[in-house]
């Protein structure tokens, strides 16, 4: 009884301590920043009034920016430091670069005080000090307050006592004890003036007490101990997936609600999603319009899967002729494109298409045709991508189809031949129904691979001309790495891509796989 009570209390307390720690760190950092900024501000103001600055704070008077006589695009400043004027020189270890930047910032936007984001919790402030002069103060590094271990241990002890007391009385008092014990951990949060954390902890306490009331905790504990072998075996992969996949995935979802600009993140709500889904005010044929890219992506996926299946099935049908000579050799040669790393394939085809004298144009010319400037129009650039991807993708469908064809019993064809069925009737009524169950999943898989096929688009057409041949995944990548680090937009588009794939795997592949049900 008491162990069960302590177990439930322990779980609740763990969550509560986690919340309290986050609250403590947030409150502590906020206070430290405010204190440091205030210190710098006060010192700058004191210096501007010719007062005596507190020890530890570095405060100087900076002169106006003057054009360099030698290099007209350079500006010098002088600093009154330690009783005399000297030039400000970057690289001089005494914070000269920082002071120079602060003076420039002051000239642009007036008096200010801010934290220096270098991890030392220093703050800088600038105020006017007479005509053309600026008082600049830098607060020294400061260590944040230490974690209040004693307080935490104290309230934890109080909580354990409350929970145990409840358990000893038993019945309804046990639940009350759990609630009171966990809620005791909200006390420090109240002291730190963090109402959100305090409320969250009380809610956790209520949740655990309610779960205890419904005997949920007992049932979960029983389930865990019954399956503890399985859970132990699962743990390494499960934990690493939580850290490596679930956490980044969740971060990606959250980043979609932020805008990233030169290292600072701003919460912008749904505006990234709105900008993407509304097309951002661009016309429908603009290559940055989401719906245009989605259209290209769908066309790309459909065209490739269709070509892969057609080519794969035709080749498999030819290869499955019983009288064919050298089948093994043909099969080995046909899967060569699958064996080559796909980034190499993409670069090879890029090389064959690029330029007036590329291999493809040479072939066209030797056939008496004109060369084509492949990457200057949408249709030809899109074709280069499709040709490349067809070349590298048909072997998979061929191998799947060959496997399915081999599993068709010969007797079926013989019986059909005896009954006088024509070749196309045999194909329609015997071959096709046997191909479908194998091809369905292969098409589902192939469609997702093609939808995600980053390398071919990125390396062959690279979106040319003018970004019109991008697909969703390359467009999201470009938001992050080629259009000014707009990670927020990229993450939002990633979320949308994920939702599209989810819809497709849940509903779309059901259509493709309909053959399975038969």
């Amino acid at each position, binding site marked *: 009884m008491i162990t069960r009570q302590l177990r439930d209390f322990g779980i609740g307390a763990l969550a509560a301590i986690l919340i309290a720690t986050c609250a403590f760190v947030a409150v502590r950092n906020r206070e430290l920043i405010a204190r440091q900024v205030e210190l710098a501000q006060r010192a700058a103001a004191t210096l501007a009034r010719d007062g005596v600055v507190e020890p530890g704070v570095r405060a100087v008077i900076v002169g106006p920016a003057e054009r360099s006589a030698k290099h007209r695009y350079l500006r010098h400043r002088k600093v009154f430091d330690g009783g005399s004027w000297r030039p400000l020189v970057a690289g001089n270890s005494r914070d000269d670069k920082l002071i120079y930047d602060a003076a420039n910032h002051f000239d642009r936007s007036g008096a200010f005080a801010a934290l220096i984001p270098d991890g030392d919790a220093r703050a800088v402030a600038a105020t006017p000090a007479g005509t053309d002069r600026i008082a600049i103060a830098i607060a020294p590094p400061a260590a944040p307050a230490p974690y209040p271990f004693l307080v935490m241990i104290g309230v934890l002890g109080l909580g354990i006592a409350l929970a145990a007391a409840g358990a000893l009385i038993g019945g309804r008092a046990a639940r009350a004890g759990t609630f009171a014990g966990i809620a005791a951990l909200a006390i420090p949060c109240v002291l730190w003036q963090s109402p959100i954390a305090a409320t969250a902890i009380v809610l956790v306490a209520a949740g655990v007490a309610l779960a205890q009331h419904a005997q949920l905790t007992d049932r979960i504990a029983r389930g865990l101990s019954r399956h503890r072998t399985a859970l132990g075996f699962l743990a390494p992969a499960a934990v690493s997936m939580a850290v490596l996949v679930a956490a980044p995935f969740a971060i990606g979802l959250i980043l979609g609600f932020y805008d990233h600009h030169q290292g600072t993140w701003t919460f912008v709500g749904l505006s990234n999603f709105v900008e993407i889904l509304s097309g951002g005010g661009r016309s429908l044929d603009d290559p940055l319009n989401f719906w245009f890219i989605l259209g290209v992506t769908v066309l790309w996926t459909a065209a490739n899967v269709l070509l892969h299946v057609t080519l794969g099935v035709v080749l498999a049908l*030819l290869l499955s002729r*019983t009288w064919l000579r050298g089948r093994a050799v043909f099969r080995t040669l046909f899967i060569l494109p699958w064996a080559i790393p796909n980034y190499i394939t993409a670069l090879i085809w890029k090389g064959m298409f690029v330029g007036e004298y590329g291999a493809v144009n040479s072939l066209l010319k030797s056939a008496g045709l004109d060369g084509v400037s492949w990457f200057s129009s949408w249709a030809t650039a899109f074709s280069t991508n499709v040709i490349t991807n067809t070349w590298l993708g048909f072997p998979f469908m061929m191998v799947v189809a060959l496997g399915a064809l081999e599993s068709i019993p010969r007797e079926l064809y*013989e019986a059909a031949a005896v009954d006088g069925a024509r070749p196309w009737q045999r194909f329609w009524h015997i071959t096709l129904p046997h191909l479908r169950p194998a091809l369905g999943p292969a098409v589902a898989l192939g469609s997702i691979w093609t939808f995600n096929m980053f390398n071919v688009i990125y390396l062959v057409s690279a979106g040319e001309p003018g970004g019109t041949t991008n697909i969703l995944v390359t467009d999201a990548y470009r938001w992050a*790495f080629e259009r000014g680090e707009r990670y927020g937009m990229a993450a939002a588009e990633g979320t949308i891509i994920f939702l599209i794939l989810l819809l497709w795997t849940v509903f779309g592949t059901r259509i493709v796989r309909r053959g399975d049900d038969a």
Partner: protein
Amino acid sequence: MKARRPNLAVVVGVHVALVAMVAVTLYPVLLVCKKAFEPGRQFALSASPVPRSVTLDHFHELFTTRGGNGELLFLRHAANSIVVALLTTIVGVVLSCTAAYALSRFRFPGRKAGLTMFLVVQMFPAVLLLIPLYVVLNRLGLLNSVAGLVLVYSTTAIPFCVWTLKGYFDSLPRELEEAARIDGASPWMIFRKIVLPLARPGIAVTALFSFMTAWNEFIMASTFMTDQNRYTLPVLIQSTVTEYSADWGLFAAGAIVTSIPVMIAFYVLQRFLVGGLTAGAVKG
């Protein structure tokens, strides 16, 4: 076979069609082989796949180009590739083999959801995790580091290994394990002393596949490894043919040296690949 032999025109037609298709399939490969041995930086001045003159200059250049610190760049990048792929494989196989066994043998609530999750994660496009991972690794100062890239690759290697190994464990007979259980062996002992030794071939195949995947990966490596010393081979090969300076001879030599080992492995392993992929897609 008993099937009647069709007339000669059909036989000849089918053979001709297949040979023509083989020619189309092989043409780009032959062009690259030609380019690797033909002097010059241009990709192709003629459509013929036969080189006009033969030289080993491109290979020589590939193996002797030195970086800023005087180290041999190709060897450096090959070492990076090998280390990253090996570590990814080890992380993937070690972390996933117990989970694969549990998913194959034990019945517990959430098993189906777990299997689906491991499958769905493999269908994630690379960019979906690439962006948050880039932001996080940038914060942690793990860009341009082998450890960072291994972590990134593990996001796909672990689910892949779980699924493939689970498929292999499913195919092992259970009788030995049951006998051991009756004799009083603990689950961990059964796994270590009976299942793991039996599963060695399956583990080897899985390990080879995840090695090949890491070896062939381009876009993550190109995004996370921007310092030339940290390039892996795919990044090196792509960097020989950028828009502004393209040396297709060097590219062809690098492409051949890099892909031959994985192509051999692919041909040895391909029968496992088809079975595993479609089995993973069909079952739920």
